[in-house]
């Protein structure tokens, strides 16, 4: 009995620190960041970074002095990157990373995952608002404005599959959708989910919050060293989790490492192509896009879903 609980606790610790949480997700996040940069570079006819570049960047940042600017709340300034990364990592615990069964599961964990993903963005917004720097302040306004615009379509788009399988638990949705490619039956939801994911990751064309030609680095302008490294790690982890989430819900589930890599990388490819093709949207255009088209499309999807479900009953 005694040894059983200890081994249980050890297992929990392992999944929190090594796999799928912590180390593994961070490594995976950096690798996906590299894949993103490399593919984008190839689309632009450049060579692009070598495989270790994101790792080297993070190493360099971690080794550097962290400068805390004047006029900020010190605890918040140091604490926010940690909370952001933790949030992103926690989200990974409810998802079938690498096709392995989810570590933790309870009814409604999909909502927790989505909330944890938003935590990173909220932390970034707060981090920007915390400093006195004007670029950070404008970046923070834009980050939060954008959050409010894509968040509800994203949520609604991801709840489509949940509605389909009558459960808000990721593992149950997987069991229910196994083999069903919902992107075919719910194309509008898939489209919105993909594009909202790009908005969430602040990738071009939704990179107005960190548009370097306008506001330098947006919210992260004042960050250096460790804080910047943690935020970037958080972004990398968010990329992996977002891709996993969408492929789990819309691409017929993930059951083994092969399908995991195939499906997430396929999604990444789509994201990179869109990044290469589109011009940055101004923040008013982003908001307009989401409220005018994104929400409408996803509501349309729901309408059909409910009709279908109703007729099935």
């Amino acid at each position: 009995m005694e040894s059983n609980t200890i081994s249980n606790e050890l297992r929990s610790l392992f999944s929190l620190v090594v796999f799928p949480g912590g180390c593994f997700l961070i490594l995976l996040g950096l690798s996906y960041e590299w894949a993103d940069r490399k593919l984008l570079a190839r689309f632009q006819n450049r060579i692009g970074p070598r495989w270790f570049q994101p790792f080297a960047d993070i190493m360099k940042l971690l080794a550097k002095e962290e400068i805390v600017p004047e006029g900020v709340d010190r605890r918040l300034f140091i604490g926010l990157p940690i909370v952001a990364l933790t949030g992103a990592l926690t989200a990974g615990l409810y998802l079938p990373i690498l096709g392995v069964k989810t570590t933790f599961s309870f009814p409604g964990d999909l909502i927790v995952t989505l909330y944890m993903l938003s935590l990173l963005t909220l932390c970034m917004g707060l981090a920007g608002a915390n400093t006195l720097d004007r670029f950070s302040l404008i970046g923070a306004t834009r980050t939060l404005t954008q959050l409010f615009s894509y968040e509800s379509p994203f949520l609604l788009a991801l709840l489509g599959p949940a509605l389909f399988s009558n459960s808000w638990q990721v593992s149950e949705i997987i069991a229910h959708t196994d083999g069903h490619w919902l992107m075919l039956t719910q194309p509008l939801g898939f489209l919105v989910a993909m594009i909202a994911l790009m908005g969430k990751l602040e990738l071009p064309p939704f990179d107005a919050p960190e548009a370097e030609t306008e506001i330098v680095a947006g919210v992260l302008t004042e960050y250096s060293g460790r804080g910047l490294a943690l935020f970037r790690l958080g972004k990398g982890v968010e990329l992996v989790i977002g891709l996993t989430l969408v492929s789990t819900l819309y691409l017929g589930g993930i059951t083994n490492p092969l399908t995991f890599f195939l499906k997430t990388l396929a999604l990444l490819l789509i994201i990179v192509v869109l990044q290469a093709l589109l011009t940055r949207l101004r923040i008013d255009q982003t908001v307009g896009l989401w409220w005018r088209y994104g929400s409408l499309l996803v509501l349309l999807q729901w309408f059909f879903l409910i009709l279908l479900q109703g007729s099935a009953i």
Partner: protein
Amino acid sequence: MRFAAMMGDIASALIHRPVTEQYPFERREAPERLRGMLHWDPEKCIGCGLCVKDCPAGAIELIVLDKKAKRFVLRYHPDRCTFCAQCVFSCRQGCLSMSNVDWELAVTERSGLIRHYGEKKDVEEVLAGSLKQDSV
């Protein structure tokens, strides 16, 4: 009005190799007229000093050891040089030229930014002299 007008280029990038050159590992052959380091032929020089006069950057010094015996040393400062080739065109004897081989200018030591051209013993004499000047 259409979305994704650059699709063609992006698709073609998949089959084309990247155009970036990885410079230190792959070197392109420099064009014939490339203006690299200034080279000087002591044989033809008559010591008129037109090159020194016309140089907009003061990168050339002509040290006259013995005008009659035509013993000159040309001190050239690549770090000041703007590579405009005015000296090459000013020289009526055609003893100046700009190399299209010797064009990698980065050096790790400042001493690499001063060059002396001329007969070996003349250069040594000038170098000894300049060292003496420095020590004074």
